């Protein structure tokens, strides 16, 4: 049997929902500020939270997410089918989609674009995401010049053959690294394509003055009728966040890309003049302490559980001015698979001491806690230090530069590591993305991101099984197995999940849109395609 998903309908409904309320009109402009200049708009290269969402406005992939949600919808694809064995994905392309240079999108563009990310010469940080496509190993190692698994039988079909079933594959063709780029432009600009982006997206880049501003203008040929709303978005870069806040108050700026500066946060949130301008939203983020499971005393599960009970997470939330919620499991609440019924380890220093005694450390022990050296992380580390001291653990704080801390985690030299400032933010909204690289055996290698060096073969097998459940009717069962996997992991306690950051976006009163577009889990800081200017005539 082959399942066919009628899909343009969903997208159209999503759009209609937006257009119907308050009657936003197309037109107008918006100014967004950022502290740092943009590194690149090349979808195969860009991999920071700032350009991630901008690239999504310039380019499109086969799949996308329903605005404001983590639900997948077809984008450049019009529909798709998955074979029963979960190995063959057939995408029918939407007709008449045009690149910003006027050329019509073809299936070979899709093939070329994915292959470009896999090609070792591109040096794409996204290469590894495409491991499941047949022919990946040959191309990634430089032995082949194309992916044998991607074929284009006719003018509007792309067939992708997998080497093994992967339930996350539709997420993979929705990430930036799989976005369609026109070969002729990539070849024309070479390494400078990142500064001269040409895609199929809702916006075209029309100006980039290094260190000053980037201008996006509405793509009038965009394939979604009526989208986007704004005619023009100006990104002013190099803007100090405190100065940007002053400019927003004066009406020169509409959205603070870097958020509200921490020093002004409590004051601004409390200010009644800002009513309706500050939107709170979850991030697919968890902040955690990793406990190196390969080194004594953290090779003892009882010790790891004791540390989980010793940390007073409520105090940490106060340290960050309430800009986070308490975490008790690896997955953040906005992620499918989050277990609302899971209670986790309650704060209980007495019980922690008891467990330490049971583990053979009645008088505690001395250890090291690595943390990044930018505020508020050293203060958070000090709070951990006090909590640990209360149960007899003397932790020396190693407060270092980000790259050094990541290195210590990767090489496994850090017994305890606070992830603040380098924590995992999901690449795509699927529970498996919080496992493989940071809790699975594959990440527990030198230089890997599994800083707890946690490798449980039994759980690895369960994870592989869950991701093999690629059929649509297995989706729920699959999420359920992930839920169980994370509960099992928490029993082993390689991490102390501490908090989930909450994002507070601030925008000027003249910019409108549903709150969810200012707190979209995929598009940060705002969904550029769905917010609108209220002052359009």
């Amino acid at each position: 049997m082959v399942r066919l998903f009628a899909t343009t309908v969903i997208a159209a409904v999503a759009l209609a929902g937006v257009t119907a309320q308050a009657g936003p009109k197309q037109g107008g402009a918006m100014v967004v500020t950022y502290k740092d200049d943009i590194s690149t708009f090349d979808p195969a290269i860009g991999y920071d939270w700032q350009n991630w969402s901008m690239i999504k406005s310039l380019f499109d992939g086969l799949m996308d997410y329903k605005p404001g949600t983590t639900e997948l919808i077809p984008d450049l694809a019009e529909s798709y089918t998955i074979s029963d064995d979960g190995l063959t994905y057939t995408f029918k392309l939407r007709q008449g989609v045009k690149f910003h240079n006027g050329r019509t999108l073809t299936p070979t563009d899709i093939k070329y674009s994915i292959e470009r990310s896999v090609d070792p010469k591109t040096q794409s940080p996204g290469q590894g995401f495409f491991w499941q496509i047949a022919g990946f190993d040959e191309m990634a190692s430089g032995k082949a010049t194309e992916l044998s698994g991607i074929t284009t039988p006719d003018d509007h079909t792309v067939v992708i053959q997998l080497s093994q079933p992967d339930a996350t594959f539709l997420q993979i063709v929705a990430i930036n690294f799989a976005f369609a780029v026109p070969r002729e432009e990539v070849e024309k600009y070479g390494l400078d394509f990142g500064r001269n982006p040409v895609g199929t997206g809702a916006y075209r880049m029309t100006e980039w003055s290094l260190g000053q501003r980037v201008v996006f203008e509405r793509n009038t040929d965009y394939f979604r009728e009526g989208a986007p709303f704004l005619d023009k978005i100006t990104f002013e870069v190099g803007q100090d966040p405190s100065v940007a806040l002053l400019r927003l108050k004066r009406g020169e700026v509409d959205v603070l890309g870097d958020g509200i500066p921490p020093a002004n946060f409590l004051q601004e949130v409390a200010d009644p003049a800002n009513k309706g301008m500050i939107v709170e939203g979850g991030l697919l983020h968890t902040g955690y302490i990793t406990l190196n499971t390969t080194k004594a005393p953290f090779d003892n599960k009882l010790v790891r559980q004791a540390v989980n009970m010793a940390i007073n997470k409520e105090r940490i939330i106060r340290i960050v001015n309430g800009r986070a919620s308490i975490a008790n499991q690896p997955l953040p609440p906005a992620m499918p698979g989050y277990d609302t019924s899971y209670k986790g380890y309650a704060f209980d220093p007495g019980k922690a001491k008891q467990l330490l005694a049971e583990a053979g450390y009645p008088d505690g022990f001395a250890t090291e806690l690595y943390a990044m050296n930018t505020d508020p992380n050293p203060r958070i580390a000090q709070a951990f230090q006090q909590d640990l001291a209360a149960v007899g653990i003397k932790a020396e704080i190693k407060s270092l530069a980000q790259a050094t801390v990541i290195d210590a985690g990767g090489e496994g030299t850090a017994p305890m590591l606070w992830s603040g400032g380098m924590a995992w933010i999901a690449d795509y909204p699927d529970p498996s993305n919080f496992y493989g690289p940071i809790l699975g055996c594959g990440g527990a290698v030198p230089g890997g991101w599994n800083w707890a060096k946690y490798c449980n073969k039994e759980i690895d097998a369960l994870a592989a099984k869950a991701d093999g459940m690629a059929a649509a009717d297995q989706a729920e069962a699959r999420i359920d197995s992930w839920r169980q996997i994370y509960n099992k992991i928490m029993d082993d306690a390689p991490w102390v999940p501490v908090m989930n950051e909450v994002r507070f976006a601030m925008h000027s009163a003249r910019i409108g849109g549903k709150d969810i577009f200012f707190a979209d889990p995929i598009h940060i800081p705002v969904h550029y395609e769905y917010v609108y200017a209220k002052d359009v005539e």
Partner: protein
Amino acid sequence: MFRFLAGRLFQSAFILLGVTIITFGLLYLIPVDPARMIAGRSATPQTVESIRHQLGLDRSIPVQYARYLGNLMQGDMGRSYVQKARVSELIASRLPATLQLMAAAIFFELLIGLPAGIFAATRRNRPSDKAVMVFSFVGVSAPQFVVGLLLIYVFAYQLELFPLGGYGTIWHVVLPALTLGVTIAGWYSRMSRSSMVDVLRQDYIRTARAKGVTESRVVLVHGLRNAILPIVAMIGIDIGLYAQGIVVVEAVFGWPGIGQLAWLAIQRIDIPIIMGVTLVAAVGIVIGNLLADIATSLIDPRVRHG
């Protein structure tokens, strides 16, 4: 004069070579692997290895240095690891903004520092002298980002006299240049005071006064011409002093100069850019000193023939 210049230029070339060796060495001592940074968190060890090979990072450091220097001789500073753009282009597009800011800052520091120093010197050990010196000290010690934010808040936000950061018109340059100028003017007022105090004790000044020349003419004409020498030398060194200030001030005011570029590159361990900016700053300092030497020798023949 020609021999003097040639000697200086020869020295400068060696200084710059030294700068490249030291910077290159230091950057490769950092315990961070750029290939791993580029490869990202989802990369396999093979990907990291392939990137390392493509960047030539798997060669020995002397080989890498020789290659870098070879390219540099041909005007190629390499490409940014993160942005993939040419370092020379990135720097060239931002250099004019930084030069403009520095020129304006030098204007302000002289405008504030010189008169303050001369004023203090003529009122030596009196309360007004002490007051000027205290202010100089405060200026020199004040963190530039605090001064910058304060100026923005008062003059741009409250009084609305200047734009809130940014780049473009003459009005945009005033506050950032003033921030740099105020914080460095302190050095100038102290320097010009002590230099002027020395000069005013000289015999020829006493002679001038005895001739009945007016006091203002004694100070501003007879005195200043001699007292100015160390100041001119100091402007040459200024560019070095600015190297740190520019980074902070450009960040606060959103000034699209090379300080901002350097700051971002350091955060992203973008070694080719860090190398490039350091080199350009070193060239700036060397040129600044060279110009100061030439100016001094023009003003004072003793230096030239010394």
